[in-house]
Every structure is written in structure tokens, then in C-alpha cells.
């Protein structure tokens, strides 16, 4: 320590000199954490609230101004939606149970896609041959319109829950593989050299270098795929409606029966599900890699 003068390091501003007592060093992270809070929260909350109120105003305008009483069933005013759907216990129970069922479908689909995607990406990262052989087929799989293979899925897996999960797996799979593979290949050359110099085995390199380096990309893939999986669960309902009804089932029924209020409520709840899933994975990402990954802050979009 005697010859070390850490004064230069303080120039960066973020770090106190090592010569300071331990207290100064301990305080530092808290100070950093406080910085975002200094901004007035109203500046973040107010604009969306105002815009939301304006949108509800437009909604009223359309319901009462644009639509004649005879055609008002096309867009019921907000308070009627709240009264006749959100505050109606029976309707709400029906919608929430269906949403829960779809959540489970989306979750299983995502988990299966994540496990398969991770394994495949690791395999592709280990041998260039596997990557070259498989990549074109992944692109094909990604490009096949889901509607085109719906009959096939039904033919193989029936017209119930299993097929709905299969739809989720198929559409959630591609972003996971591609992002994970990209992440596994993202470790810098110098870091690979370091592992080479010290005779690291293939497995050690994968475990201590490539997989941790891939985490930010894996989370990016998870967030995209989680959203797609929710869409898959809803779309799947439209084709494979047997068994426990999902939210897509309900949407279809309400629409067929011209139940505008229930339909709008179901749309709002399924939108809420998408938002909740996105927020959950953003939270999880910050939780797991936020400490070291600088790109993980904020909403992480």
C-alpha cells in the first residue's frame, strides 16, 4: 500500500480512494442507489395518468357521441364495463379462472421451450457443425405460420390443453435459442484466451465463462418468449378449445354472444396478464444479474 496512491482512481468520481476508511467505502453503494430517487416521482406518474384519463374521455366520446343508442353495444361506456363485468362476481370469476388456466398453459409452454432452447443453444455453441446444420431449420420453424400447422398439431396432440401448450412451445422457442446462442458466443476473445492459457476444460469454459456471459441475452430471450407464450396460449384457445376453458375461449364466446362488456373486461385482463409477465421477468432479471450487468436497469426494454 505504501507506494500506492489511489488518488488517480478517485478522478472517476464513483469510487473513493482505498486510503479512506472503510466507512466511506460502505456508504458509496447507498449513495448510488439514492440517485434515481432524487427525481420527483410525480414526473413519472403524472403523464401516463393524464394520458389514461384522456383515453377514457375519448372512450366516452365514442360510446355516447359517435354511436347511436342502438349500436352502443359495440363499445359500452367504461362505467358499464366496470359495473357489469368487473364488479359482477360471476363474470369476473369466469374470466379470472380462464386467465389462470391460460397462464398455466403459457407457463408450461415457456418452461419446455426454455429447457429445449437452452440445450439446443449449448449444443450449437459447442460444435460449429451442429450450428450450421440446425440453424436453417430453426429459421424455417420460425417462418412457418402457426395457422398452417394448426391442423397438424390437432391431428397429433388432440384438441385440448396439450395442443395449446405445443403452440406456446413452438412460438416461444426461436427467440430463446437465438438469444441464448448469441449470449453464449458473446464472451470476449480475451476472456477465452485467459481460459485457454490456464488449460480450462470445455465444460469449465462453458460453466464459468460462456453461460454467465449469456445470462443477459438469455433474460432478453425469456422476456420476449414469455410474451409470445401468453399470445400462444390465447391463440391456441381459438383452435384447441376442449377441456378447461382458457381466456381465448372466453373471448370467443363473449364475442359470439355479443357480450360487449364481458368481452372488453376479458381483453383488459389478458392485456394485464401480458404486462404482469413482462414485469415479472424484468424483476427477475434485475434480481439475478442487476448487480453486475449495467444494461439491466430501468424497465429493461
Amino acid at each position, binding site marked *: *500500500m505504501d*507506494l*500506492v*496512491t*489511489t488518488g*488517480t*482512481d478517485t*478522478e*472517476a468520481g*464513483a*469510487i473513493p480512494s*482505498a486510503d479512506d476508511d*472503510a466507512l466511506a*467505502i460502505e456508504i458509496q453503494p447507498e449513495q*448510488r442507489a439514492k440517485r434515481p430517487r432524487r427525481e420527483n416521482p410525480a414526473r413519472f406518474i403524472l403523464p401516463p395518468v393524464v394520458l389514461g384519463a384522456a383515453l377514457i374521455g375519448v372512450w366516452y366520446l365514442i360510446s355516447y357521441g359517435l354511436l347511436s343508442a342502438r349500436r352502443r353495444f359495440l363499445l359500452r361506456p367504461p362505467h358499464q364495463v366496470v359495473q357489469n363485468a368487473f364488479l359482477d362476481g360471476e363474470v369476473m370469476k369466469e374470466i379470472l379462472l380462464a386467465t389462470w388456466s391460460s397462464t398455466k398453459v403459457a407457463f408450461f409452454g415457456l418452461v419446455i421451450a426454455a429447457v429445449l432452447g437452452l440445450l439446443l443453444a449449448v449444443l450449437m455453441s459447442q460444435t460449429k457443425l451442429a450450428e450450421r446444420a440446425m440453424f436453417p431449420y430453426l429459421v424455417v420453424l420460425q417462418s412457418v405460420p402457426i395457422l398452417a400447422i394448426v391442423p397438424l398439431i390437432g391431428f397429433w396432440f388432440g384438441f385440448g390443453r396439450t395442443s395449446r401448450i405445443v403452440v406456446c412451445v413452438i412460438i416461444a422457442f426461436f427467440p430463446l435459442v437465438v438469444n441464448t446462442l448469441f449470449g453464449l458466443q458473446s464472451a*470476449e476473445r*480475451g*476472456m477465452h*484466451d*485467459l*481460459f*485457454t*492459457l*490456464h*488449460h*480450462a476444460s470445455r465444460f*469449465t469454459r462453458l460453466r*464459468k*465463462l460462456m453461460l*454467465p*456471459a449469456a*445470462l443477459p441475452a438469455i433474460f432478453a430471450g425469456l422476456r420476449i418468449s414469455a410474451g409470445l407464450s401468453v399470445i400462444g396460449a390465447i391463440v391456441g384457445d381459438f383452435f384447441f378449445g376442449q377441456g378447461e376453458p382458457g381466456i381465448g375461449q372466453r373471448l370467443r364466446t363473449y364475442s359470439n354472444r355479443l357480450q360487449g362488456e364481458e368481452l372488453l373486461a376479458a381483453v383488459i385482463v389478458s392485456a394485464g396478464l401480458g404486462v404482469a409477465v413482462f414485469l415479472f421477468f424484468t424483476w427477475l432479471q434485475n434480481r439475478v*444479474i442487476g*448487480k*453486475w*450487468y*449495467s444494461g439491466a436497469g430501468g424497465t429493461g426494454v
Partner: protein
Amino acid sequence: MTATVHDAAPPTSTEPLSFERVGMTFPDGTEAIRDVSLSVHKGEFVTIVGPSGCGKSTLLKLASGLLEPTSGTIKVNRDRLGYVFQDATLLPWRTVSQNIELLAELHDVPADERRRLTAEAIDLVGLKGFENHYPKSLSGGMKMRASLARTLTLKPPVFLFDEPFGAVDEITREHLNDETQRLFQLERFAGLFITHSISEAVFMSTRVLVMSNRPGRIIATFDVPFEFPRHPDLRFEPDFAQLCGRVSHELRGGH
């Protein structure tokens, strides 16, 4: 292409690193290095200065085995080779102390021994109090120190430095030079240091080699007479400036 490359040829005790008529031509036909012979003894700190793109870094990659020479012989013990990269190459998901522990982990050093070596290295480079910081919150100079500490845990008999302080500002660089010089005093490894800074080369070395433009050849050798430990103010002594001037003269091609 009569390469006689002895990868793990046992180096003699006083000559842990030697190059004998080493040449390197890349597959694309670029001749990076021609006919380089040099040896670094234990307790010697040899610096290679040369213009950018002259193949200095290639020399270290050859020494470390990351590249194979196309001709000539390299003798070095690569079991515990110290290699400090241009970038700190810290793993961002590991804290400072976890990063410093990495090489000992890769060499299967038992956990308690590993922790002891890590603590010792952290002490040596003056990073105490920063053990649990992540690299993203460190300045460039501190990252480089962590990188040095990581290599120190191996107690390497041969220490290769690939322009490690090129990216930091001059004030930090001088501190890191003082540091490295002190570490060399303590550990007495065989050091091979690459740089394009003449004063850095003269300040730290026992010997300075001047390399030519590509293909890189050693065109001049200077023994540096100053006693260790070297005081930071040595940089402003007339003898020091004179030696720097002579090195600079050779670098310009003797004109």
C-alpha cells in the same frame, strides 16, 4: 517451414523463457515476426518497445502458446504462466475477489489456499476494501490492478505483459508502473513487457529491446543500469532522459 517447436520443453532454472530464431507468418501471408532471438532470466524485466503493428503482441501470443510459430524454437514453462492482457479481462459477473480467485480455481487450488492467495494478492495491489465490488464500478486503473492481482495468485515464474497500461491515463499509468516495479522487486519473476511508451519501458526494465516495423525484428538492446528500487522521480533525472533519447533514436530507425 522447419518448425522445431518444443511446447513444454523444460526451461533451465535461470532462463525461464527463451526464443531462438523465431519467425511467424500468418496464414494470410502477413509476416509478423522475423528471426527473433531473446531470453529472459529469472530476476530480469525485459521490455520490448516498438511502433504499433510491429508484431509485439504476436510475440507474447507465441510465448504463451496462444499462437504457434512458423519457424524457430520457444522454450517456456507454461504450467503457471502469468499473462496480463491489454484489457483487464475481468469477468463482469464476478466481484473483485472472485475475479482474482479465478485462475487459482482453474488450476484446481484447494479452496482455503485459494482464499489465502487471493487475500494476499488483494493486499499487494492495494485493492483492500473493494473485494466485493463488481468490475463495472471500478476505474480503469483499478481494473488493471485487479487483473495484476489475479495473475499474482499463480506466483508465476514467467510474467508476460501485453501493453497492459496502454488504455489508462498517464498519471494512473505512472502509478501502475511504480506498482509493477515494486511487485517485480518482491517476486523476482522473469518479466517480458510489451509497450509503446519509451519512458515506461526504461523505468521498469533491466533491459529494453527495440523492435522494427513489420516484420518485427529486434534492432537494438539497451541495458538499463538504474538500481532497484527505482524512485518515481527517476523519470526526471538527466541519465534517464538520455537513455530514453537513445531508445527513441533507435525506434526512429537510427536517423
